[in-house]
């Protein structure tokens, strides 16, 4: 947009102010409901599992399991808020993990010690960062310039990225990373796993970015209405490119945690996470049409999913039953929303 259109922005200040206030007040989420559900789940599992559930060990293992899915869900949440979707998150994370694993397993001299190992780990991390930056820029560029729905674009990039990973690795997995990397990922500080700490900091960062920065407000705005955002003088293409760059960089963080926890990297790892990240985001109150959604809701949803998973695990149920219950939870939450919506509408019309 050229500078002559700048004054127009003042004309929309009032609605924008409304939007900012609404964002900060948490409009469009059902955080209370989610927290109540979380509390209910905690109570149920505490009654069913009086000895094992509310234990530091259980809580700690929950904190170990949450971060990967959490970071990937954040990577899905940002595009969702912008009115898009990134189906390539798992493929991106896997490719970044493969590149980092390739550097650590084949390029690093096997007799490297101490500081040298850390240097190589840093090189691997930087390489992964650049790769994800590149993927994000390309994806964002295609979404912004071609103007096709992001589902289509990321369906293409997902197939392409995954295809390259499979082609280059011949479907093999890479493993055997330096002990230093593995050790750090299993380390705890005051009983809290480092990976969980990273997740909390990143989630906080994404929360601040989405609610308190100009870019964040613009991401919400293009999610509400791309055309009118463009006509109010926002460079929507730049915002869209940022959305996919941020999403891909979150995949890079998830890739680091994933490769350290599994001690392996491969083209086909964690494919089942893709739909679960969407499930978590929707459960957390992020509007699939874009424009609304908060990180707090998403974190609450992730905690709910993790609680169900850990509780079922302790009760001795199979993982598949957990997945089924996650699906039921999503349907139940949507039904509750619908019913309360109908109820509120009737109440107001009186």
């Amino acid at each position, binding site marked *: 947009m050229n500078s002559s259109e700048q004054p127009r922005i003042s004309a929309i200040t009032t609605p924008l102010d409304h939007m900012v206030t609404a964002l900060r007040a948490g409009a469009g989420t059902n955080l209370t409901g989610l927290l109540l559900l979380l509390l209910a789940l905690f109570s149920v599992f505490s009654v069913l599992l009086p000895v094992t559930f509310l234990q530091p060990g259980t809580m700690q293992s929950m904190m170990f399991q949450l971060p990967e899915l959490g970071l990937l869900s954040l990577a899905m949440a940002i595009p969702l808020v912008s009115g898009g979707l990134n*189906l390539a998150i798992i493929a991106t994370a896997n490719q970044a993990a493969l590149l980092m694993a390739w550097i650590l397993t084949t390029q690093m001299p096997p007799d490297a010690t101490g500081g040298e190992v850390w240097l190589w780990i840093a090189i691997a991390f930087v390489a992964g960062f650049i790769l994800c930056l590149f993927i994000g820029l390309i994806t964002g560029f295609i979404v912004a310039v071609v103007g096709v729905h992001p589902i289509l674009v990321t369906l293409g990039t997902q197939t392409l990225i995954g295809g390259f990973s499979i082609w280059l690795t011949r479907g093999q997995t890479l493993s055997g990373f330096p002990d230093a990397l593995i050790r750090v990922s299993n380390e705890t500080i005051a009983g809290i796993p480092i990976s969980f700490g990273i997740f909390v900091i990143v989630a906080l960062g994404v929360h601040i970015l989405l609610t308190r920065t100009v870019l964040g407000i613009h991401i919400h705005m293009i999610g509400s209405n791309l055309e009118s955002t*463009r006509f109010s003088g926002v460079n929507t293409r730049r915002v869209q490119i940022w959305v996919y760059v941020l999403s891909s960089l979150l995949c890079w963080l998830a890739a680091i945690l994933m490769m350290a926890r599994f001690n392996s990297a491969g083209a086909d790892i964690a494919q089942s996470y893709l739909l679960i990240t969407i499930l978590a985001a929707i459960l957390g109150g992020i509007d699939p049409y874009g424009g609304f959604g908060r990180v707090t809701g998403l974190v609450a949803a992730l905690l709910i999913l993790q609680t169900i998973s850990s509780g079922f695990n302790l009760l001795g149920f199979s993982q598949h039953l957990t997945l089924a219950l996650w699906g039921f939870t999503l349907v139940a939450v949507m039904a509750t929303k619908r019913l309360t919506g109908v109820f509120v509408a009737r109440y107001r019309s009186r």
Partner: protein
Amino acid sequence: MRKIFDAIFSHTETSLAVVIVIVVMVFSFSSPYFLTLSNAADLIEAYSVTTILAAGVFVVLVSGGIDISFAAVASVTQYIAAMVAVKYGAPALPAIALACALGALLGCVNALLTYYLNVVSIIVTIATSSIFYALLIYFTGGSEIYNLPDWWTDRVVFFRLETATGDIARVTLPMVIMAAVVTITHILMSRTHAGRQIYALGGNPEAASRVGIRILRLQLLIYGYLGFLAGLAGFVQAHRVHQVVPTAMFGTELSVLAVAILGGASLVGGLGSMGGVVLGVLLLAILQNGLNLLGVSPYFFDVVIGLAILISISVTSLTERRMRGQRRLVGAAT
């Protein structure tokens, strides 16, 4: 020249057809086996399941929805039909009918949830797909069924042709079912009242309901039809591989969706044709087969599909926008 380019690439069907002709010419020059009847027949059979599913997904896409539970539905119906056939010795027709009816029923569950919860179908089907699939694995323990009855696994050949070179081309059951599904879907979408209504619903749901289209009934038809075809596809898939593996169809959702979209069905709804979807499948099938015959590593195939999707959507969208731009004032261009 530019006009010809625009005329070809502004329609998905024509641009796909042109690309297919070019690709076929390139491959037939480079491999003598490519343009043979038996190769063509094998190719069509190999893609029969994908085409059957893509036909159902196409109907849902035209209506403005996205369904990704069809792979889970196909796995569930396939498994239950196989269990009934193996344990209780159910004959062919009742077993197939059971698979299709069950598929249609699960599809209707999707339709009811979408309608009454008033949420986009992609979310409903993400939830139901997790539920169907997880319950299937839970109750079966993931165990395969190998001892399918003979009527299920025996190859049915309708027509057999021996060419001069000694190659044998067969018209088999999956091809016939696929052809029937494509024809019926084409007639449903372009020649019937319901088909017109599905296009109207996808084009503008609000307007569709204002002119008196019964949305719920239509959605039951749309998602029920996809479920029905998923049941059929599950049957054909087991017929081809001679066994039922609960996880076999899982993970095919996105590739079938990609094929339908490549064929011109729009995610926003209201657009696309059965012919375009068939051409989309054909293009991918020809690319895979041709690259195979040229000795390109099968590992490279996903790279080709990904590029095909990206190039196809980019060319179609950019051409369309340029043509719109010529007619309109320079409006949206930033």
